[in-house]
């Protein structure tokens, strides 16, 4: 059970990975030398805390993100000798690439400031003013009591209009880092000090949230957790170009597992690019393909797909005018006068046409084989999720019926989580396998897949048993859960190792 617990807490114990990495590497090399999946080796994999398919990452809270930003702003501010607000604007303009920005500023300070929407002299503290004889160009209000504001560019407007303008930009247009002065063709950026002077509290918070968004959006090593309403971001060193060799699944504090590369739900073991191709293919093909396969044949000459919706067996292809028999696919001219009753199944032309037909159908059948299994696991995972929602109820009723304690019924939740995770993995093994060329590695992969699948199905079955039987099955369920988890680790480790070392052969270019 020890190993099981290690695994279940992958996300949270992530900080330990760096410390234990050295000792892990040895055992991983052991594994890499030998793919026969011998049990002793498997044991090594299970025992290590950092698996080959896991990546380093760190979860950042909104506070962490702000702190990181401030550190960089302060640093650049002290290097360039500019006020922090200006440095922040510069950094946002330079997409947080500090080195490049400092270099560009050192070489052409004026140009860099201009391009970033900054003038070249800096007020210390912005204030609003009443200006005699002033009329606001936006609302045409005037009067001696009108509070007005202008940034360094001197374009002066009343505070009310400024506030409306900033509200529109921030709330309606989601702008923050690049809000320009309202003046016509003035590209001066509204800095955060001016903004804080002018807007109300709630707008200020929204503004800062948006600024934080741009920070995370701009940095290659940061990504928002895509879960609804989640405020955390993930810091992960995996680059876009690495995505052919690694599938960087990360887990947020909110428990959501997702791929750092493409932000889709965890899709190990299949790499992002294959996932994208697969999803595209499924979207285009699946339903149509099923129907085509069930209801149509292809013209033996031009391969147009034909649906026979009634009538006799004498077919004339609309497209190429080829005449053939629907029953045997042979040439119609060889049918003589037996028009409505084909009894020529063994004739040569017919059997050749059928072979050809079979070949083109085979690729469709192959796709459907993988698709159906993929879709089945997707469906089952959904059902298992419903089941999970009922699990808590089950646990409560198990408690009252069997006299077990709350802690003692936790095994059900553990099992339910393992089940979902394994199904998720299985689902993607089918998409992955669809693109694999056949060789020895593929066979090992399929064996691993089969083992995991069998384990998952039998756990799933136990899990669905009525409550009174569950307490008797506790040990079995515990064992099966541990076994499923172990099979999953083995499958993912094996696949990830091969991916990293470029061992897989695929049946297409990607």
């Amino acid at each position, binding site marked *: 059970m020890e190993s099981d617990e290690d695994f279940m807490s992958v996300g949270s114990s992530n900080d330990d990975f760096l410390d234990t990495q050295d000792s892990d590497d040895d055992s991983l090399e052991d594994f890499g030398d030998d793919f026969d999946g011998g049990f002793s080796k498997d044991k090594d994999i299970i025992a290590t805390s950092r698996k080959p398919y896991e990546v380093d990452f760190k979860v950042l809270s909104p506070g962490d993100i702000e702190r990181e930003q401030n550190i960089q702003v302060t640093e650049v501010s002290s290097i360039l000798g500019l006020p922090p607000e200006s440095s922040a604007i510069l950094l946002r303009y330079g997409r947080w690439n500090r080195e490049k920005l400092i270099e560009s500023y050192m070489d052409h300070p004026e140009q860099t400031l201009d391009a970033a929407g900054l003038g070249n002299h800096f007020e210390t503290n912005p204030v609003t003013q009443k200006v005699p004889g002033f009329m606001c160009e936006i*609302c045409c209000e005037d009067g001696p009591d009108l509070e007005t504001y202008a940034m360094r560019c001197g374009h002066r407007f009343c505070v009310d209009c400024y506030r409306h303008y900033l509200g529109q930009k921030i709330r309606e247009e989601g702008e923050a880092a690049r809000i320009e002065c309202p003046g016509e063709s003035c590209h001066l950026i509204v800095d955060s000090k001016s903004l804080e002077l002018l807007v109300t509290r709630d707008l200020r918070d929204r503004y800062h949230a948006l600024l934080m968004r741009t920070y995370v959006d701009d940095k290659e090593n940061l990504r928002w957790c895509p879960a609804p309403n989640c405020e955390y971001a993930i810091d992960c060193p995996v680059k876009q170009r690495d995505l052919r060799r690694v599938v960087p699944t990360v887990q947020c504090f909110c428990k959501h597992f997702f791929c750092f590369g493409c932000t889709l739900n965890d899709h190990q073991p299949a790499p992002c690019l294959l996932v994208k191709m697969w999803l595209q293919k499924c979207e285009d093909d699946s339903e149509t393909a099923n129907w085509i396969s069930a209801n149509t044949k292809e013209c033996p000459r031009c391969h147009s797909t034909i649906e026979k919706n009634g009538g006799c067996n004498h077919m004339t292809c609309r497209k190429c005018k080829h005449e053939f028999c629907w029953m045997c696919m042979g040439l119609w001219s060889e049918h003589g006068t037996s028009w409505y009753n084909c009894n020529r199944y063994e004739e040569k032309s017919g059997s050749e046409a059928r072979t050809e037909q079979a070949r083109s159908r085979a690729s469709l059948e192959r796709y459907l084989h993988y698709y159906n299994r993929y879709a089945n696991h997707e469906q089952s995972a959904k059902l298992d999720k419903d089941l999970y929602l009922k699990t808590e109820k089950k646990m409560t009723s198990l408690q009252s019926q069997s006299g077990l304690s709350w802690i003692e019924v936790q095994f059900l939740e553990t099992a339910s989580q393992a089940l979902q995770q394994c199904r998720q993995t299985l689902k993607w093994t089918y998409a992955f396998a669809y693109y694999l060329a056949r060789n020895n590695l593929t066979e090992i992969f399929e064996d691993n897949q089969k083992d995991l699948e069998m384990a998952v199905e039998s756990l799933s079955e136990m899990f669905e048993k009525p409550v009174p039987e569950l307490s008797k099955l506790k040990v079995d369920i515990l064992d099966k859960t541990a076994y499923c988890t172990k099979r999953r680790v083995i499958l993912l480790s094996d696949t990830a190792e091969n991916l990293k070392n470029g061992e897989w052969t695929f049946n297409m270019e990607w």
Partner: protein
Amino acid sequence: MFATKRLGKELLKMKEHLPPGITIAKSENLEEWHMDLQVLDDNPLYQDQTYRLKFTFGSKYPIEPPEVQFIESPNTPSTPRPIPIHPHIYSNGIICLDLLSSAGWSPVQTVESVCVSIQSMLTANTRNERPPGDSDFVSYNRRRPRDINFFYDDDNV
């Protein structure tokens, strides 16, 4: 409405003085104005024609840009109001112009300044053509101009 005073002043100012070739056609309420536009130089594409622009003001004008497009009414033999030919003007009157988008708009712009910009956009044009994909756009577009994401890829015309 936020801009009652502003629109009132704009109207007052325009009634006093307008640049040549621009006249007010309709301004009874503060939601929709019509402006007539003529191109005064000898550009053969637009000679002796009058075009009509419709301005629709939202409640947030002038913080938000007005909706501006050419219209064909009233299109009578005595007062023809065609849609001018221009590579940035679709044949349904919708104009692809950066300054009319929320990103390109500045609240300092006025009805008059928009008219002047569109007038000079016509003056400078030498191409007797509609935007690419005009017929598709005109038959499929059901959106209002402000909801369309134009790409302002051509700064020359």
